[in-house]
C-alpha cells in the first residue's frame, strides 16, 4: 500500500497533494509578483498627477481620465482670463483640460508612434516567421551541405547581446539611409528574430513525419503544395509559439529603437519614457501609454495561448 503511494509520488502522472500545494503556492506567488506592477500601472493611469506621486502611495483614489487625455493631446497653459473668454468647451476632454487652465493645442504623437510599433512589430514578426519557416523546412528535410555548421552559425548570431553591434549597425544604416525608417527597423528585428525562428521551427518540423509529405508527393502535389497543405497546418502550434516570441522581442526592443529612431519611425518604447508634463514626467500619461502598449501583446498571447502552451512543451517531450 505504502509502496504504491511512494511510486505514485514519483510518477509523472499524478503529483502528491503536498507537491501540488507547494507548486500551487509558488505559481500564485509568481503570478502576484508579476501581475502587481501591471495592476499598479493600470491604476496609475487613472490617477491625478498628485495622486500618482503621493507618498505613501495611494491605493484608493478618485479616478480621472486626465492621464489618457494628456497622453493623446498637446496642451498649452493659458491665463484664467483667456479661458473665461473662450466659447464654452464642446467636449468632456476640453472641459477636463480647462480645469487646469490649459487648452488643447492638438493631438500628441502617441498614435503615429503606436502605429509604428504595430507595423514594425508585426511586420518583422511576419517576416521572421515566414523566412524562418522556409529555412527550417529546408534544414529539416533536405540534405544541405554544412547544415550543422550553418545552423550553428545562425544560432551564434544570438550569442552576444544585439547591442554589441549597435555602432556598426548605426554606421551601416546611415550609409544606407535606413536610420529612422520603418523598413530599417523591420529588417533589423527580422534579422535578430530569424535565428530564433529557424531553431524553434526546425524542432517542430522535425517532429512532423516525412511520410505525410511523401504521401502528398506521390499523389501528385508539388513540394511547395505539400508544404502548404500538409506541413504548415501541422506546424501551426510551432508557428504560433515562434510568432509570440518574435513579437515580444520586437515589440519591447528599446536599445536599437533609441539609437536608430527619433521621429518618423519611432516606436513606443523610446517614446513612452519621454512623455513630459509640466515640471517633469507625466506619470499618469506614462502609465496610460504603458497600459495601451501591453494590450496587443496580451491580446495576441491570449488568442494564441492554446498553441503557446502546447508549443512550449512540444519539442521537449519526445515519444
Amino acid at each position, binding site marked *: 500500500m505504502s509502496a504504491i503511494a511512494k511510486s505514485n509520488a514519483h510518477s509523472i502522472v499524478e503529483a502528491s497533494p503536498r507537491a501540488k500545494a507547494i507548486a500551487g503556492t509558488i505559481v500564485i506567488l509568481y503570478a502576484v509578483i508579476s501581475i502587481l506592477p501591471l495592476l499598479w500601472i493600470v491604476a496609475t493611469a487613472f490617477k491625478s498627477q498628485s495622486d500618482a506621486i503621493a507618498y505613501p502611495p495611494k491605493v484608493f483614489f478618485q479616478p480621472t481620465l486626465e492621464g489618457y487625455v494628456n497622453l493623446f493631446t498637446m496642451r498649452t497653459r493659458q491665463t484664467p482670463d483667456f479661458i473665461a473668454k473662450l466659447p464654452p468647451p464642446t467636449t468632456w476632454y476640453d472641459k477636463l483640460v480647462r480645469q487646469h487652465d490649459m487648452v488643447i493645442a492638438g493631438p500628441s504623437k502617441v498614435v503615429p508612434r503606436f502605429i509604428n510599433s504595430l507595423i514594425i512589430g508585426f511586420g518583422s514578426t511576419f517576416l521572421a516567421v515566414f523566412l524562418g519557416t522556409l529555412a527550417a523546412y529546408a534544414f529539416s528535410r533536405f540534405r544541405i551541405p554544412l547544415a550543422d555548421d550553418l545552423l550553428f552559425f545562425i544560432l551564434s548570431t544570438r550569442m552576444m547581446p544585439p547591442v554589441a553591434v549597435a555602432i556598426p549597425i548605426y554606421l551601416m544604416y546611415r550609409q544606407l539611409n535606413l536610420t529612422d525608417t520603418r523598413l530599417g527597423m523591420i529588417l533589423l528585428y527580422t534579422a535578430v528574430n530569424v535565428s530564433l525562428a529557424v531553431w524553434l521551427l526546425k524542432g517542430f518540423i522535425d517532429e512532423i*513525419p516525412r*511520410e*505525410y509529405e*511523401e*504521401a*502528398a*508527393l*506521390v*499523389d*501528385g*502535389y*508539388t513540394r511547395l*503544395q505539400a508544404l502548404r*497543405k*500538409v506541413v504548415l*497546418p*501541422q506546424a501551426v502550434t510551432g508557428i504560433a509559439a515562434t510568432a509570440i516570441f518574435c513579437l515580444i522581442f520586437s515589440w519591447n526592443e528599446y536599445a536599437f529603437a533609441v539609437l536608430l529612431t527619433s521621429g518618423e519611425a519611432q516606436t513606443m518604447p523610446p517614446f513612452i519614457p519621454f512623455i513630459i508634463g509640466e515640471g517633469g514626467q507625466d506619470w499618469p500619461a506614462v502609465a496610460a501609454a504603458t497600459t495601451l502598449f501591453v494590450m496587443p501583446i496580451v491580446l495576441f498571447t491570449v488568442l494564441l495561448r492554446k498553441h503557446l502552451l502546447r508549443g512550449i512543451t512540444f519539442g521537449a517531450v519526445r515519444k
Partner: protein
Amino acid sequence: MTDVVLRNISKRFGSVEAVRDLSLSVNDGEFVVLLGPSGAGKTTTLRLIAGLEQPDSGSVLIDGEDVTRDPPGTRDIAFVFQQYSLYPHLSVYDNLAFPLRSPARRVPERLIKKRVEQTAELLHVSSKLKNSATRLSGGEMQRVAIGRALVRDPAIYLMDEPLSSLDAKLRAELRLELKRIQIELGATILYVTHDQVEAMTMASRIGVIRDGKLLQLGSPREIYENPADSYVASRLGTPPINFLPAHLVPDVAMPDGTEMLGIRTEHLEIGKRNGGTLVGRVHRVEHLGEQNHVHLEYKGKMLVTLADPHQPVDAGEDVELRLKHPLYFDAAGRRIPAVIQ
C-alpha cells in the same frame, strides 16, 4: 494493360545495402506480396518504385516506360504507408479526398464526392466521413488509409504493411476484405509484409526477400512446396518447419549431398512404437483448441508437429516418427529437388 518492372535495382544507405540487385515484375491485375523480416528492404523497394528514393543502379519501368528519374507525382502510383497514413488535421472525408484534390489531377469536386463516398462504402466507413481522422479506431484508421489509395485508379497500389498495427482479429477481417476489393477492382497491388498468413492468403505471387535480396518468387503453393532454400522454407508454415541434420537419420533414404532435412508437420507422422528406428520422446503438448502442437525430442533436437486430436499423446511418452517426403537441403542450404520414394 499496366505492369511494373524492376530491373536489377540496388540501393545502399551508407554501409547498409538495403536492396541488392533486385528484379521483379508485377503484372496487370496481380497481387504480389513481398514477404520478409523487418529490415529486409521491403519499404525501400516500395519507395524506389514510388520515386521517393533514387536507386544507385537499375531501373524502374511502369507500363513499359522507364520512370527511374521521374518525380513521384508523375508515376501514377498510390502508396499506403506503414505509419502516419492519415492527416491528423483533416476529416476522414478530406483525407480520402486529398489525393483527388491534387492540383495535378483537377478532379471536379462533384466527382470527388462520388468517388469518396463509393470508397467509403467499399471499406465500410461511410458513417465516419465527418469524423476527425484522429477520432477513429485502429481498424477504421487503417481502412481509411487504404481508402486514400483506393480513391484513385493508379497503375499500381503499393502497400507497406498496412495491417501490421492491428490486432489479429481485425487483421484477418481486413485481409479478406482487401482481397475481395482487389478482385472486384481488378487492381494491381504490390504488398509488403512480414506476416506469412497475409502472404499466403492474398498473394497471386509471393516474393521472399531477405537482406535486400529477392530469394524466390512464385505462387504461394510453389513457395510452400518447392522452396528454393532452407530460409524460404522456414518463412512459411505454422508451426514452422523443423530442420534435422541428415546424419541423425542414417536409415532414411535421401538424395546425394543432403545435409539437412526440412520436415514440415505434414511430413512427420507420429504413432505408437511399432519397431521403427526413429523414436522420439514427447516433451510437451500444446492444446490450441482445433489443433494440438506436439513438442518432441529426437536425438537432442526439438521437433514440433501437429497431432491428431483423436489420438492423444502424453508428455513423457515415446513415439515412433515416420517421415513422408520431407525436403532435402545441401550444405549451402539450397534445396535438392529430388523426391525419393
